[in-house]
């Protein structure tokens, strides 16, 4: 098992509330994601890790898609985020997200009854690519109607994916909506996960999401760009695949701008 992680905390403009939320998440020994609703398209998330090690904060972007133009593959804005997630609202977009889009997490909507069923083919396709499905539980804490939708949608998902490649996270806006990792594991049983799957949904699968995000950002782990504090930036580079040739050039052009930031 790895450390417990909660990959979804809502970012708010209220700094004090945000700090309380992150401190509560740290005390509950789970990493939390922070989500800011800037528009219906962009959300901001950050991530905490448990108290036994130094806290780790990451950034996540969730794109709520109602049209295929909402998610632009290889967009430069996405580079500054550690995790990339999409929330498709139609079956066609769900299929595209599972099979094509270069993302880490596919969010399952909890605020409405899903208008489509999960088919085995795209779910298996996503699992093969290392993309995980995320179920958020704080809506279930807030409201009883949303609780029904959350459980119904989650159970539908588990029927198709058999408990593989699923993460459970909070999408909490306030500290009181966070739950400890063992409570979230128990909640996973309500969603149709087995004991082992529910525990993996809060630790090992989250770790694999982070690794997937790293390989996505670094062209399968070949090219790393690091922010340096001196002019001689430490940057490992190696020729990538021909289709990733563009990313080599991009990373080199990033270097002068990083140097000028210092």
């Amino acid at each position, binding site marked *: 098992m790895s450390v417990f992680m909660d990959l979804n905390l809502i970012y708010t403009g209220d700094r004090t509330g945000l700090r309380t939320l992150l401190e509560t998440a740290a005390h509950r020994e789970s990493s939390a994601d922070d989500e800011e609703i800037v528009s219906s398209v962009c959300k901001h998330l950050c991530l905490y890790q448990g108290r036994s090690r130094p806290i780790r904060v990451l950034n996540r972007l969730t794109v709520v898609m109602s049209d295929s133009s909402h998610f632009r593959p290889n967009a430069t804005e996405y580079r500054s985020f550690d995790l990339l997630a999409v929330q498709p609202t139609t079956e066609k977009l769900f299929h595209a997200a599972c099979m094509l889009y270069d993302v880490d997490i596919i969010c399952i909507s909890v605020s409405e009854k899903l208008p489509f069923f999960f088919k085995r083919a795209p779910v298996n396709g996503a699992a093969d690519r290392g993309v995980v499905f995320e179920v958020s539980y704080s809506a279930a804490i807030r409201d009883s109607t949303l609780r029904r939708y959350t459980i119904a949608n989650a159970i539908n998902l588990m029927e198709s994916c058999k408990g593989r490649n699923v993460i459970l996270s909070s999408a909490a806006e306030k500290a009181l909506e966070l739950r400890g990792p063992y409570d979230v594991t128990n909640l996973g049983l309500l969603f149709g996960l087995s004991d*082992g799957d529910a525990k993996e949904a809060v630790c090992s699968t989250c770790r694999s999401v982070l690794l997937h995000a790293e390989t996505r950002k670094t062209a399968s782990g070949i090219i790393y760009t690091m922010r340096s504090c001196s002019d001689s930036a430490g940057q490992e580079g190696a020729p990538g695949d021909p289709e990733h040739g563009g990313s080599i050039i991009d990373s080199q052009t990033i270097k002068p701008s990083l140097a000028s930031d210092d």
Partner: protein
Amino acid sequence: MSVDLDHTPRCLLVSDRSSFLHEKNRINSQVEQLNFNYKVSLLLPECGSTPSHLDSMLNNFSTFYLIRKLPIYELLDKRFLETAVYQGCVYGLSYRTRIDEDICVALMPNGHLCLSLDKDSFQVLGVEGKASRFSHRTKSRYVVSVDMTESSMVPGGRGYLRLLTGLKSRLPLKSDFLLSHHPGGGASLQALLSRYDWSEHKPEVSTHALTCLSCPTQLTSIPPNFDPHSFLEWLGAVDADISCENSSCSFLSSLACPEPKTMLSQALRVSVCGLLLPQDILRLIQEIRCYLDQPQLQSWVALTVHGFVDSPVSWGGREHGALRGGENFYTLLMGEDHTYHLHLVTGAHDTCPP
């Protein structure tokens, strides 16, 4: 589709019934095999205060030491091995490390060093080990178990140097460590203790007098007239101070005392917490037998010994893990005539108790 919520987490319960006078009873080996004991709880019925010889026994449990931020490679130190590990029984356990999140280390009295590592740490350490038995879909936990008394682990040997290099340079592990030595005590550990920030601790004894306690009747009858699950649930509720009244206006607890039951006017609950050695527990069991030999109002005593939840090993050095709770404990219900009922319980991620 409906979710099957009747399925409860798996736990293993082994029940044994015998007499101390029977020559083939296994109680000694069963107690000795659980190396790392955290808490001993005693329930003495119809007793207002701890009898003096039991009290002195409880207050004379061996002391243990807490070393802060001990680098784990120090457990391979040549002098430590020669003065402590080879000479007797060293019990060592990493403190405040969680079995399903962090790296846990245990040093067993037979000289085995056991490290429970997550995947990244195991790959960095570079020492032979195997995946945890309790991996689900992915192998995310690995166990390295090394016998320090083996020929390849003699200081200077190949395996020894590889592990030492791993712990010193590749994966420099540091954690708080609980240490105890039998029979030498602190003297054998001085060489190690003197180099780090250490403190000596005595196991903490707490006593609580209970009144009007409902209790199942004929606990020690043979065959038992109730099942072990309900008895253990009741005993756990008494130990944790949970009401068994099951009143209609309280929603906190619906636990109830198994029937048929009687009311005890008073009872005494004693607990000892710390790093407790199996040898002390065996001596305590002998004292309780002497106590039961005297004429009593009630003819039984219940002793529960809890193992550490975050220990990488439980009975007999076998692997221990935690799914939702890493319980591993045993309850010894001792009756008059030197008979006993023993219940050994472990959680889901554990091997069968002996």
